[in-house]
C-alpha cells in the first residue's frame, strides 16, 4: 500500500464526490424551495449525457457538447416543470414519488426509442486526455483533475449565486416562506421553473462530464440518483453545505472502501476470503455510513432540527 496509490484514490474519491455534488445540489435545491422529491433527476443526468454524446458525435467539439448538455437538460427540465411537476407541489410525497417514477419510465424508454439500447461513447478531447504529473511525481489523469476543478468552480459559482445575487435571495426566501415572497410581488411560479431548470442543468452537466469516462446509456442516471439521495440524507435535506460535505464523504467512502477494505481484511484472514468479503462490505460501505450518521443525527449533518 503505497503513498502514491493513496493519493490517487483520494483524488478519485474527490472527483466522484464532486460529480455527486452536482446532482445532489439540484435535488436539495428543488426539495428545499419547492418541497418536491424528484426521482426523475437521474433522467435529466442521462439526457445531458445523451445530448453531449450526440452533439460531440456531430460537431466533434467537447465545449459545444457540454453546452448542449446544459441546454438540453435545462430546457427539458423547464418543460417538465411546466407540464407535470407544477401540479405536484401541493400533493403528498407518495404522489410525487409515483409521478416522477412515471417520468423515469417515459424518459428511459423514450431515449431507448431514439438512440437504441447500445451505449454511446463520448470521447475525452485531446487537450484533456493523458496523464499529468502532480507535485511529488504522481501521475494522474488530466481529465479527472479537470472534473474536480470544474466541479469546484461550479460549486463556488452556485454558492455565489445563492448568497450574493437577487435570484439567490429570492430562492432562499422561497425556502423559508413561500407565501410571503409571493405577497411581496415575486412571481413564484417563474421562480420555481427557474430553480427546477437550474437543478436540471446541473444534472445535465454532471451527466456529460461523467459520460466521457463511462459509457452513455439508458439507465445510467438512477444509480447516481440514489447515491445523490444518500448524499442529501447524510448532509441534511435543503442544505447546500451539507450536500457538498455529504458528497465528498460518500465519494471518498465508496472509492477508498473498495480499495482498502479487502486489504484491511487480509490482515485477519486468507486473501481469497478477504477479497470476497471485503468487496461485499465495500459495496455496502456508504449505506453503513448513512445508517451510522442517521443514528447519530436523524436529520443529517446540517439538516434543520425538528
Amino acid at each position: 500500500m503505497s503513498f502514491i496509490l493513496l493519493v490517487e484514490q483520494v483524488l478519485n474519491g474527490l472527483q466522484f464526490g464532486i460529480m455527486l455534488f452536482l446532482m445532489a445540489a439540484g435535488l436539495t435545491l428543488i426539495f428545499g424551495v419547492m418541497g418536491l422529491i424528484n426521482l426523475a433527476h437521474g433522467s435529466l443526468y442521462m439526457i445531458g449525457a445523451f445530448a453531449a454524446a450526440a452533439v460531440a458525435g456531430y460537431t466533434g467539439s467537447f465545449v459545444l457538447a457540454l453546452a448542449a448538455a446544459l441546454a438540453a437538460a435545462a430546457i427539458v427540465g423547464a418543460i417538465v416543470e411546466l407540464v407535470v411537476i407544477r401540479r405536484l407541489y401541493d400533493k403528498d410525497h407518495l404522489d410525487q414519488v409515483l409521478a416522477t417514477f412515471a417520468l423515469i419510465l417515459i424518459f428511459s424508454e423514450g431515449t431507448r426509442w431514439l438512440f437504441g439500447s447500445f451505449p454511446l461513447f463520448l470521447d475525452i478531447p485531446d487537450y484533456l486526455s493523458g496523464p499529468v504529473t502532480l507535485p511529488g511525481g504522481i501521475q494522474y489523469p488530466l481529465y479527472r483533475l479537470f472534473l474536480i476543478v470544474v466541479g469546484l468552480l461550479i460549486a463556488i459559482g452556485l454558492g455565489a449565486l445563492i448568497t450574493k445575487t437577487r435570484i439567490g435571495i429570492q430562492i432562499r426566501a422561497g425556502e423559508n416562506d413561500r407565501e410571503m415572497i409571493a405577497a411581496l410581488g415575486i412571481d413564484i411560479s417563474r421562480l420555481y421553473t427557474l430553480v427546477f431548470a437550474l437543478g436540471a442543468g446541473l444534472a445535465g452537466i454532471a451527466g456529460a462530464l461523467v459520460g466521457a469516462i463511462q459509457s452513455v446509456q439508458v439507465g445510467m442516471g438512477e444509480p447516481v440518483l440514489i447515491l445523490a439521495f444518500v448524499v442529501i440524507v447524510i448532509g441534511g435535506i435543503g442544505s447546500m453545505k451539507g450536500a457538498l460535505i455529504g458528497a465528498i464523504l460518500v465519494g471518498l467512502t465508496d472509492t477508498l472502501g473498495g480499495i482498502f477494505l479487502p486489504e484491511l481484511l487480509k490482515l485477519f484472514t486468507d486473501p481469497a476470503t478477504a477479497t470476497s468479503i471485503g468487496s461485499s462490505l465495500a459495496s455496502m460501505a456508504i449505506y453503513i455510513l448513512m445508517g451510522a450518521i442517521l443514528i447519530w443525527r436523524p436529520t443529517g449533518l446540517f439538516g434543520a432540527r425538528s
Partner: protein
Amino acid sequence: MIAERYLNAAILAIFFIVPAWALWANEPFTITLMTRAAIFALAAVGLNIALGLGGLVSLGHAVFFGIGGYAMGILAFHAQTVTPLMEWPFVIEGTKSMPVIWLTAIVLSALAALLIGHLSMRTSGVYFIMITLAFGQMFFFFSISWSAYGGEDGLSIWVRNDFPGLNTLQPIQFYGLCLAILCAVLWFTHRLARSPFGLALNAARQVPQRVETVGLNPTRLKLVAFVISGAITGLAGALFADLNRFVSPTMFSWQMSGEIMVFIIIGGVARLFGPVAGALVFVGLEHFLGGLSDYWLVYLGLLLLLIVLFGRGGVIGIVSGREKAHG
C-alpha cells in the same frame, strides 16, 4: 357506479375464471401469467399494509421480495447440489420443501424489516422514502458482489420445489397454491385492518399525537405494520422465485420496489383489493402492450402519470366512483 364490494368480487372472480378457461383451452401460458399476477398482488398487498394502513411510503420493499427470493434460491441450491448450507456450529441442509422455504422467507424478511424499519423510523417523510430506497440499493449491491450464490448472474433452480400432496410442476396446481395464499393473506389483511391493532394503526397514521395521548406508541405500531408488511412481501418473493425457478439481484433492484408501489397506485391506495386490481392491470398491460411495442413502459408511465395527476383512487376508485377509501 358500482359498489366497491361487487367490484372486489369481480376482481376475485377473474382469478378463478381465467385460469379455469385456460385449463379448458389448454393455454398453460395464461396460467403462468395469472400466477405472476397473483404473486405480484401478494407482494403489493404486503406493501399496502405499510403504505395504506401505516402511511409509510417505503421505496425499498424489493429488499423483502429479494430476501424471499434468495431464501428459496439458496435453500434449493444446496438441496440440488447436496451440499450443506452450514456445517458449524450445527449442520443445516438445503431443502426443496415449500413450507420450510416459505417459513424461512417470512422469518428472514420480518427480521430485515425489523432492522430497516427500526433505523428508518427515526426519520419521517422524504427522509423515510430516501432511506428505504438506499437500504434497497445496499441489498442490491450486496447480492451482486455475493459470488458464492451467482453474484450478478443469479441462481437457477432446476426443478420447482415440492409441496406435500401436490404436483407443483403442473402450472395449475402451483397457481392454486399461490391463489390460496393470496386469498388467505387478503382475509388476514381484512381482519387486521378491523382489529384493535389496525384501528390504532390507522389513527397513528392520521393523528399520531392523539394516539400517544391515549398511551399507545405510534412508532411501535408502525414498526409492527412494517414488519408484517415485509414478511408478506418476502413470502411473495419466495413464490416469485419458484415461479421463475430463478433468482437474481434484479429482485432487489429499486425498479422492483417502484413496480410494487405502482401496483398499489394503479389499483388504489389503502383499499383491500387495490393492489390485486393493480397487479392484474399491470400484468395485463405488460402482456398486451409488451406484445405490441418494445417500449411499452412509455405507455405505463403515461398511464401512471394520468392516474396520479387526475385519478386519485386508482382503477377501483375510478370505477366505484369513490375518491377515498373508507375505514
